[in-house]
């Protein structure tokens, strides 16, 4: 499973939405994710990929695609895949 697919599954599980509706353009608002959903998604992704996502970086994510791109970059940098 790709990084994007794994993150999509995590976000869908936490927000209780069908993963099919989460596209790279989806905002957290689009999928009705509240601040707790976002924090829980960040924590779950951090644990899955063994990375840290500082709040300052997370606040820059405008949509799901930004989130995925950030994690892909971090995973590549740290040679996790």
């Amino acid at each position, binding site marked *: 499973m790709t990084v994007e697919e794994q993150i999509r599954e995590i976000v869908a599980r936490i927000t209780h939405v069908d993963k099919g509706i989460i596209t790279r353009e989806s905002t957290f608002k689009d999928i009705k994710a509240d601040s707790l959903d976002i924090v*829980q998604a960040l924590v779950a992704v951090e644990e899955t990929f063994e990375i840290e996502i*500082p709040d300052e970086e997370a606040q820059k994510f405008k949509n799901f695609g930004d989130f995925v791109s950030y994690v892909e970059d971090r995973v590549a940098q740290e040679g996790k895949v």
Partner: protein
Amino acid sequence: MSFEGKVALVTGGGRGIGQAIALKLASQGADIIINFFRHRESAEKTAKDIEALGVKAETIRANVGDPAKIDEMFDMIGNKFGRLDILINNAASGVGRPVMDVDVKAWEWTMDINARACLLCAQKAAKLMEGRGGKIVSISSLGSPFVLPNYSIVGISKAALEALTRYLAIELAPRGICVNAVAASAVETEALKFYFKEGLVKDNRQVTPAGRMVIPEDVANVVAFLCSEEAFMIRGQTIIVDGGTSVGPFTLVSKES
């Protein structure tokens, strides 16, 4: 008041009230372990500021809402320091909602971090204090005794923390461990900016009898006192630091009106 030779763990010690407590205890000679979760940069900066005071500082990343991470944190403290003299349960989180909108997820998240973590950290800390005594101080808020708008679950978690403080104070007294809590009204921190933005807290500068908002150092001073031998006979109490706001609720009108 000196904490020379003491080892203190401050959960959520990288920012705001926790940071002020960490710096205050360090200024009195304690070596400090700063637990952080989402804000590494500020934790590492605080550690540098503490080292500049001539004492040791360590940072440990751990989500205190996760029991396994608490275990790992205390294993590390045990291995590295072999003891603990002071535990400050300061880390907190929460979801700002009216009580009727609190769901299981919000309840568990908030209670796990604000209440359960205090229990688990105290249990682990008491073992590292065995035979030497120690001090445990937890940070509460006025949302426990009073109703604040959209603060329900956080206030409830703080009520649990205060009750836990009383039980721990009695049950750990025979082991020479003093347990207390400090409850502050709205404190000028980064977290408060969020609460202002969300409309959860109103600017109370105009209505605080002491004439200004509570700052983190106000809380840190009281925490440090409770960690000192001078406070030996204070047990299981929650000391309120609010500039007089809670004792005069009917005087809470703007000075301009």
